[in-house]
Structures are given as structure tokens and as C-alpha cells.
């Protein structure tokens, strides 16, 4: 029978190697299993019928913003997350001064390379926002079961966001929270980078900002992909850089699409700034030669090859992506 034999073949093939940690080897087959071994994804054009499920976008997170839960989360972030991130990611924080004029809630829009992006950003956010922020997390991934949903809501203050489309329930929830004074962290790429390069920004952050008249703070996170990139199961310590940009507002005559493009372009400038310096990045921005976050549109091996040239030169040893040995 096809599925069982395919699975056996896959396991035999993928567990045979010696260059992957054992935990990773054991987890990989489970992560890579297709439907129907794992839950199905929902086509973007389909509205699911009303159902009493309490997972996904329907997962209730009100309780995670109660005072006891906030206190618990604050303690966890300050006593556990920050020290762990300091040891594992050795973050360099840049541009926090750009937030000095910011007053009230904001939407932090960051690129996304790793599961570490959220705890790292939480530990790096300045205090007015750190303990008063919710994280827009993929409803299908983080809220797929009640256990993962509860942990995500409690530990990082996650709220379920439908990443396949701009859904009314996700937008309404975000708007309500912003009106209550909560800030929002969103990863507009919709998922972690599969190959080290960025992905095109989706319009959710721009849409919510436009609807709620809230400023967007572009954020670039560099280096987390080396620590725990997509497909890795064990972290490998490395340095990281978090760069905050100037808060941005949607122009009066600007539509959501162009505002979203502007946010993506600004994050690309921050990436350039993190890899070079502020001045060079500024000049390239004015010249219109800022490298795109999404990298060269060529064959996959050339994208990986080119990625190696994009590593910031910060005086530390550089690891070749390929070839090995």
C-alpha cells in the first residue's frame, strides 16, 4: 500500500544519515508527513462551515490577558526568556531610540526566519511595550491543538491569526486589542523562511494599521535562522541583530497594498543597515538599490549560494553554507 511503503522508504532514507542530530531525525518524518497523516490545510477560497471547534482562529485567548496570566508571562519573559536569549542569540539591539516619540500601541512588523524570532523580539522590545503586547501567531500552527494553543497564549501572549487570508475574525480581534491599548507583533511573511531569504509580505499588518490608524514599527531580525532555522530541531548558538525602524503611518491617500509595499521596503532597508551600516543603507535606499529581502529569483542552489554573500561581516567566523567538508 502506497502510504505505508512511502513512509517506510522516507524514514529509511532520512534516518540513514549521520550529520543530523538524533532528535531532528526522529522529528523530521512527523513534520514532513502529508495529509491525511496530518490535518488538512484549507483552500484559501473556502469558508469553513460554522463548527464548534475551539482550535485555530476560534481558540479563546481572553484568559491569557488577565492580570494573573500577564504577571506570569512577565515573570517568564524577564527571568527565563531574556537570559536564555542573551546566551543563545547574543542580541545586538539597534534603533530602539527611533521609538522614543512613539506613544501608545503600535504594530511591530518583522521578518521571520525562526521560532526564536518571537522570544528574541519579546526580550528586545523596550519596556513600555514588552509587557503589553500580543503576538499574531499562525492559527493553524500554534493553535492547532488546545495544548499548543494554551501554551502559546500564556507564554508569549499569542493570538490566532489566519495566515491564509485576511479574515474578519482575526482582524476584529486585533482591532479590539489595539483599542484596548495592546500592541501587536506580526510577521507579515506568514511563515518562517524556507531557505534563508525573506518572503513577500502579506497585507495583514498594513490592513490592521490602516483600519485602526495605528503606527507600524518595521523591525528586522538578523541571525535567528542560523540558530534555529526552519527544519532544524536543536538550536546552535550564534549572534543576532534586532533593528527597529521609524514608526510608519498609512498615508491619507495611500491604499493598503502600497502601504504594505512600503513596510516591506523599509524592513529591507533595515536588513541592509544590519548587514552594512546606516549610511551605506541610506545611500542605497535613495539610489533605489537596496537589496530585496526575497533574494535573487534564480535556481534554489544559487539562492543558497548567494545567501552566503549576504552574511554580515561582524568580525566573527563565517560558516559556508555549501559545499561542506
Amino acid at each position, binding site marked *: 500500500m502506497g*502510504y*505505508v511503503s512511502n513512509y517506510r522508504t522516507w524514514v529509511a532514507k532520512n534516518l540513514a544519515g549521520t550529520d543530523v542530530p538524533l532528535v531532528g531525525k526522529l522529528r523530521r518524518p512527523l513534520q514532513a508527513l502529508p*495529509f*491525511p*497523516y496530518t490535518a488538512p490545510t484549507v*483552500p484559501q477560497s473556502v469558508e469553513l*462551515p460554522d463548527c464548534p471547534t475551539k482550535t485555530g482562529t476560534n481558540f479563546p485567548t481572553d484568559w491569557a490577558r488577565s492580570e494573573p496570566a500577564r504577571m506570569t508571562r512577565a515573570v517568564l519573559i524577564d527571568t527565563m526568556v531574556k537570559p536564555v536569549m542573551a546566551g543563545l542569540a547574543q542580541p545586538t539591539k539597534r534603533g530602539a531610540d527611533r521609538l522614543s516619540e512613539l506613544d501608545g500601541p503600535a504594530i511591530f512588523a518583522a521578518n521571520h526566519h525562526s521560532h526564536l524570532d518571537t522570544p528574541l523580539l519579546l526580550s528586545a522590545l523596550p519596556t513600555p511595550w514588552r509587557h503589553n503586547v500580543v503576538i499574531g501567531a499562525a492559527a493553524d500552527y500554534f493553535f492547532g491543538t488546545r495544548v499548543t494553543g494554551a501554551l502559546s497564549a500564556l507564554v508569549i501572549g499569542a493570538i490566532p491569526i489566519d495566515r491564509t487570508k485576511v479574515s474578519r475574525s482575526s482582524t476584529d480581534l486585533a482591532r479590539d486589542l489595539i483599542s484596548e491599548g495592546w500592541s501587536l507583533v506580526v510577521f507579515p511573511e506568514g511563515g518562517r523562511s524556507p531557505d534563508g531569504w525573506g518572503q513577500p509580505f502579506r497585507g495583514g499588518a498594513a490592513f490592521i494599521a490602516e483600519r485602526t490608524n495605528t503606527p507600524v514599527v518595521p523591525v528586522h531580525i538578523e541571525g535567528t535562522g542560523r540558530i534555529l532555522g526552519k527544519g532544524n530541531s536543536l538550536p546552535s548558538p550564534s549572534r543576532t541583530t534586532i533593528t527597529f525602524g521609524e514608526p510608519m503611518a498609512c498615508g491619507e491617500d495611500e491604499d493598503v497594498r502600497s502601504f504594505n509595499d512600503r513596510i516591506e521596503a523599509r524592513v529591507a532597508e533595515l536588513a541592509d543597515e544590519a548587514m552594512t551600516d546606516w549610511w551605506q543603507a541610506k545611500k542605497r535606499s535613495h539610489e533605489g538599490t537596496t537589496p530585496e529581502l526575497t533574494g535573487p529569483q534564480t535556481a534554489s542552489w544559487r539562492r543558497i549560494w548567494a545567501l552566503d554573500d549576504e552574511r554580515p561581516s561582524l568580525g566573527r567566523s563565517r560558516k559556508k553554507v555549501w559545499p561542506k567538508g
Partner: protein
Amino acid sequence: MSPRKAPRPGLVLDVDASTPPVLFHHGESFKMEKLPVGRSRIIYPAEPLRGLENPNQAIIDALDNPIDADPLRAQLFPDMKLTIAFDDISLPLPPMRKPDVRQRIIEAVLDIAAEVGVDDVHIIAALALHRRMTEAELRHAVGDRVYDAFAPSGRLYNHDAEDPDGMTHLGETLHGEEVQISKRAVDSDLTVYVNINLVSMDGGHKSTATGLSGYTALRHHHNVDTMRKSTSFMDQENSELHTKNWRQGDVIRNAGVKIFQIETTINNNTFGETGPLSMLQKREWEWTGRDRAKFLALQGGLSYMTPSARRKAFHNWKAPYELTSVQAGEIEAVHKVTTANTYAQHLVPVEGQTDIMTMGLPYISPYNVNSVMNPILVAVLGLGYFFNLYKGKPLVRKGGVLIMSHPTPWDFNPVHHPSYIDFFEQVLAETTDPIEIEKKYEKQYAEDEWYRHLYRTSYAYHGVHPFYMWYWCAHALEHLGQTIIVGGEPKAVRRLGFRPASTLQDALEMATDTVGPQPTITHYHNPPMLMADVK
């Protein structure tokens, strides 16, 4: 009654990156396939309509209040000859759970006949040139009460189209088509026909003009020319097959044969809304954890079974179909209502044709109930039945490609399909051209004494039946540029004149030879049954 309050209509889904793999039936197994993003769509059938709350009362109401006819009770009298004919084993598919619709209706008719005092009653399985039904199959269809009351005395039996004393020639249509039906029906004061309309092809004059007929009359519409002019034979308004049947029906009526037609429609509840196969009639993204577990367990279990054990397991499945309508009276008036009710369940509006049509063929077709799905039946299920399930224009464009998924074993049931074996070994080995086949071989097979003997005394399809199956494919064969079978036995597939492919991806690649690069693809998610209304 179905627990679902508002059954959803059919759906045409554009495949995007979030679309999960789609279910393909694959004989007595299944495949999950990914279709190319951005240029594929999937047509899902409508959910099962709600069944009638009280089917027995609905039947009584229909008999008492027929359309354009007197109530059944008023047409019965004590010394009359009453014949009840009913659709054979080919309907419905899969066979339905007890009590079968036919049992409900025949019992209701007999209740009235008994009350009136009718003694001379014959009950006939209207099987035309299909195989005879076994005792178990007859019992399932009409119920034990009816069987035990009529079969032992020889008053419940299978129609025999080759009985020289049992058929009556009623004349010809204005177009020269001969009309011949069961002598018992002609001699009866009233023939009650009990129909199950699974698809829109069924019913109407076709019930009697075909079901109670024989080769002499059937050859006038079961031929290549008629099938090519039927676009499609599921769409009565554009079906030459139906036009000819209707003309023969006029001759039957003008000859004084009185027919009281009872037609029924059933819903799409093929695999049940609960139970071991319920996931097969759900849209994939709505599969729950339990559905996935059931599917994996089913696939796992099937992988350890022999082909015959798998076949037996599947053919034991009885569908929990529910009666959605019953209407009785004058044939044409009744059939209009029936067709509308059939369309209400099956029609799915579709915008435009496609370059490639894909379909997964299930384990069952009208002609292999409790039997082997041989390669000819694979062809007719895909190119005959599923291809023709359209209104307007074919789902696939002229010169397009049809990709079917089925194991297509070189395997035949020698009891049920003896002439199929010879047709496959001798006729198709020489040519797959329907015209040439019809001209050169049909008569020889139709009049073969051995096949005739097996049809009358054993459980064999008539000698000419495999020809009709090939003619059923004639419209598709003429329309398509190429036919590919995924996962089929290469030798058998090539004998049919089709191309074998190991995987769907290979098949899609092969199809580009005919339809060019980046073709549009439409997957027919059938069964449960659907009919594309192509604009």
C-alpha cells in the same frame, strides 16, 4: 432522514497552495493526489439532499395521486393480468441498504392489488441484455416477503430477451426502428414499472423500451452513430439515445400497452454521513482526525488483503441512500418531474471547459455488481458514464485529455462476462475503432448460440453486451485527443488503445504532448454522483 439541516450544493474549487491532496478513487483502493496550483479546479458533488420523512406514505400518496393518470387502485380489477417490472441489479450503485426502494414500492402496489382481488400477477426483473439476477440479489431488491410469495411459483423471474415465445414484436417507428418487448407486458391489462433514477439517463420510456426489450429493438439505438449523436446521453434533450427510446415508447403506447410508471430519486448518501466510509463523501479539508484515522486504517487494511478479498469487502457495502422523491402516472409527465429531482441533486454549474479532465474510478460500475471490473468496464465507466455526466458541452475540450485512475487488471469474471473475454482477446486486439468493430463483429457475437445459452440459463451478460460498452465510449473516443490510465496494468491499458502512466504527475506530463504546456485541469470528484452543467 439526513441529520444535516441545509445540504450544500456542489462546489467548483480552484486549487491553491493551501488545497490539501485530493481523493482519487482507484478501484478497490484510493490515492491522494496533489493537483498543480493555479490552473486546476476540483468539482465536488452536492451534499445529500434530505430524504423523505416517511417514504412509505410518500409512495402511497404517489399511487393515489398520480400525474396525468387515474389512481392505481382505479386501474386494477379482479380478473386482470398485472405485471410489475422493476429495474435490475445495475441500479442503484452501490446497491442500497434494505429496504430497497423497489421492495417498498412493489409491496405497496401488491397491497392495493390484493385489496382489489387481482390474482394474476407477474413480477419481472427488467434486465434487457444484462445478466440474470441471482436469488440473493432478487431477494435484496424485492424483499423476502415478495420473493417467497412469487418466486417459487414462477411468477417472479428475470426477463429473457432471447425467449422466442416470450417476446412480442409491436411494429416499427416512423424511422424504421423495430419495437419488441416482453410478451407478458404486452398481454397484461396493466404493467407497473418500478424505477430507480440514479442518474438522469435512467427512466422514462427507456424503462420499458429498453428494460423489457431485446437485441432486435436495442440495436437501433445501442449503436455507434446514436451514441456519437448523444451529447450527452445523460442529457435527454440532447440525447439521440433518448429520442429513439421515446419513439419506441410511442409505438408501445399506440399498440395499447398500458404502463403505469413509478419513478423514484435517491440522494447522494453513497457512503453515509457516519460509518467507516463517511470520509469518502466529505471535502478533504473537512476531514476530522477520526476521518483521517479511518482512511489510514482502511488503506492499511486493504494493503494486506488479496484482490478478491478487497473486492468482496467493497461489494458488501450497501449504500444508505434515502428516497428524495417518488412520482407515478403517465411516463413522460412523471419523467419530467423525476429528471428535475435528479438534477436538483446532481447538477453543478461549471464555467468553461478544460484541457485535461481527471477522475478516479471506483470499484463498481453498472455491470460489475458482485463481480470483477474488467478493462472494458473500466473504459465504459470513465469514457462512457463519467465523461457523459455533463449538460451543455463536455467538461473537457475537443482534443483534450482524459486521465483516469484505476488498476485496470487483465481480469474477467468468466461467468458474468464470457463474451467480454473474447471481445478483449479477439476484437480489441485487432482494432479499437467502434465503427469497424460494429460493422465487422457485432452480428457474430449477438447471434452466437453459446453466448445466448449462457445469457438465458447462467448469469452471463448477452454476447453483444461488450460491444454496447464500447459504443458507450464512442462519443468520448471521438472527442478526446488522448486517454491515459494511471496505475493501470500496462498491457491491458494498451489493449484498450489508451496510454498507461505510473503516476498522476507522469500522466500530466504525457498529456502535454497533446494539449501543450501549462494546461488547465479539472478533477471530477465522483462518486458521490455529480453532473457538470458546463456553460
